[in-house]
């Protein structure tokens, strides 16, 4: 019993590649997106030439090609600048801290969530821990500033529990990078569990049955079934996090830092912003930004290549 559609499809298949729909409309569909990419993504890539110029904004748009070329002198200045070295060290420290903590916490929490058998309780915990991901860093920074303020709840709590003197947490340069790592993990760990919980749901239930027949306890089941089942996703997220080694989180730090903590809290992105937008050194700012985007490009390419080799991950 073939339906009409099946007959038609069969007919199409037999004719093979002779019938092909015109692809003109496909090109047309891509056009609006491509135009925007061309103007707002590809033209700026050309705009990095100003990192090799004494960019003269007075020339208007001609400045892109008529400014004086200075070769790599902005980069020489960059590598001899203590501000840059400091920002690079801070960036690496904060970003790597976030990668490590942000890697383990979601895995542990999703394994723990998997053991909660009361359904509504599991859902409520999930709902609560996903929420901060959807709030902007402006809002989160507003909340954290209140909580960590001199008259905030953290200091009151410290006083009651440990008789501790009030501390200005966000102004303390020793604590600042750690606070960034911890509060970023706090905002994102819940959402990070989504992908692992999905992986756990995808594990074949007969594997658990077999483990039980073999007398495996719940703990052994976790070690020998659940974790191996999550492994592809774990490897994938580990590899892809490589691309974030220079992303210390501009939005978070910009909204929480202050001059007293520049020494440990200033990162490349905030430095680029201050150089270019606040002191107006467009050319030098572009050079600093280019250094970061270039290294990041290498790291991201490497991470995608590894993901493809190790986990068969293809983006498109």
């Amino acid at each position: 019993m073939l339906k009409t559609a099946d007959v038609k499809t069969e007919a199409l298949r037999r004719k093979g590649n002779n019938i092909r729909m015109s692809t003109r409309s496909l090109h047309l569909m891509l056009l609006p997106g491509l135009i925007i990419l061309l103007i707002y993504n590809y033209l700026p890539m050309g705009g990095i030439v100003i990192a090799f110029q004494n960019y003269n904004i007075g020339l208007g748009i001609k400045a892109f090609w008529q400014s004086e070329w200075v070769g790599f002198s902005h980069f020489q200045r960059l590598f001899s600048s203590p501000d840059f070295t400091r920002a690079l060290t801070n960036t690496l420290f904060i970003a790597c801290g976030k990668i490590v903590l942000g890697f383990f916490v979601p895995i542990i929490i999703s394994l723990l969530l998997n053991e909660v058998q009361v359904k509504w309780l599991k859902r409520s915990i999930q709902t609560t821990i996903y929420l901060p991901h959807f709030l902007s860093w402006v809002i989160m920074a507003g909340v954290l500033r209140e909580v960590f303020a001199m008259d905030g709840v953290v200091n009151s709590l410290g006083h009651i529990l440990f008789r501790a003197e009030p501390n200005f947490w966000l102004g303390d340069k020793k604590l600042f990078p750690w606070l960034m790592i911890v509060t970023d993990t706090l905002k994102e760990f819940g959402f990070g569990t989504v992908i692992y919980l999905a992986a756990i749901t995808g594990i074949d239930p007969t594997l658990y049955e077999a483990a039980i027949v073999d007398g495996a306890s719940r703990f052994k089941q976790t070690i020998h079934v659940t974790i191996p089942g999550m492994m592809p996703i774990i490897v994938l997220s580990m590899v892809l996090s490589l691309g974030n080694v220079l992303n210390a989180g501009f939005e978070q730090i910009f909204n929480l830092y202050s001059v007293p903590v520049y020494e440990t809290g200033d990162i490349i992105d905030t430095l680029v912003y201050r150089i270019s937008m606040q002191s107006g050194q467009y050319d030098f700012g572009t050079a600093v930004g280019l250094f970061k985007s270039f290294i990041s490009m290498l790291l991201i390419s490497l991470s995608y290549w590894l993901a493809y080799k190790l986990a068969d991950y293809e983006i498109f």
Partner: protein
Amino acid sequence: MKKYYIYGSSYRIFTVFNYIILFLAAAVCILPLVNVFSISLSSPSRAVSGEVWLWPKDFTTEAYKWVLRSSDFWKAMIVSVKRVVLGTSISMIITILCAYPLSKKKEIFRVRTLYVWIFFITMLFSGGLVPTFLIVYYTGLIDTIWALVIPGAVNTWNIILMLNFFRRLPEELEEAAFLDGAGHWQILFRIFVPLSKPAIATIALFTIVNHWNAWFDGMLYMRKSFNYPLQTYLQSLLTIDISRYLTAEQQNIVAKLSPKTIRSAQVFIAAVPVLCVYPFLQKYFTSGLVLGSVKG
């Protein structure tokens, strides 16, 4: 799966600890927000003395009244609503239009690989802050709503999510429609789009939240502060000393209110829209994320 568990006494002890850990994890996520909400509803004197915990002391809504009376706040709110509406519709149209051709097999759409590379390269490299700013400047978008909408309208991740969903639709549908004389436009809008409502809803909700939450582009591309969207307006308020920028009359009111309760009220109001769409988001995003991570 419950019946397969082997329960031992050690498992019961574990369960107790498990609940404690998970409750703590949930608490650190939600209690800071509750604390700030309580501060916003407390009297200024109790708020600054640090005695407000998870419940308002000397309940008052003065701070909210003060925030909602400000015309700047409403102007910023309107800019935000505009950018959410314009930004989400434009971005969704582009996402759907780009995802359809890219979801086609190489045999059907031979230049697909070239187009994929054009999109892919933008994920690896970008011109950076200054060149992008200059292009936005020279295309005349500074101080217009379009600066917040157009430059970020192509979101490659969303296109990937969408095209993976398209790829899972049965090929026969398309073939049958083609034999009935439908072109690509009709196949896309009469078959693919109606069948992809869950994916479209997921991506649209994410786009709405992203637009609502965006603040940096507002700060960068809007020179006049009355063009700020709400998050940028809020950012500018939170990072400056509020009392320096007010008229004498306003300062009198502020003296009674304390910036602490006002700041808290502002933070909370800016979060309300997200809290409102959050239940819908949660319903969709799990499926949305999974569909993006699994190849069709």
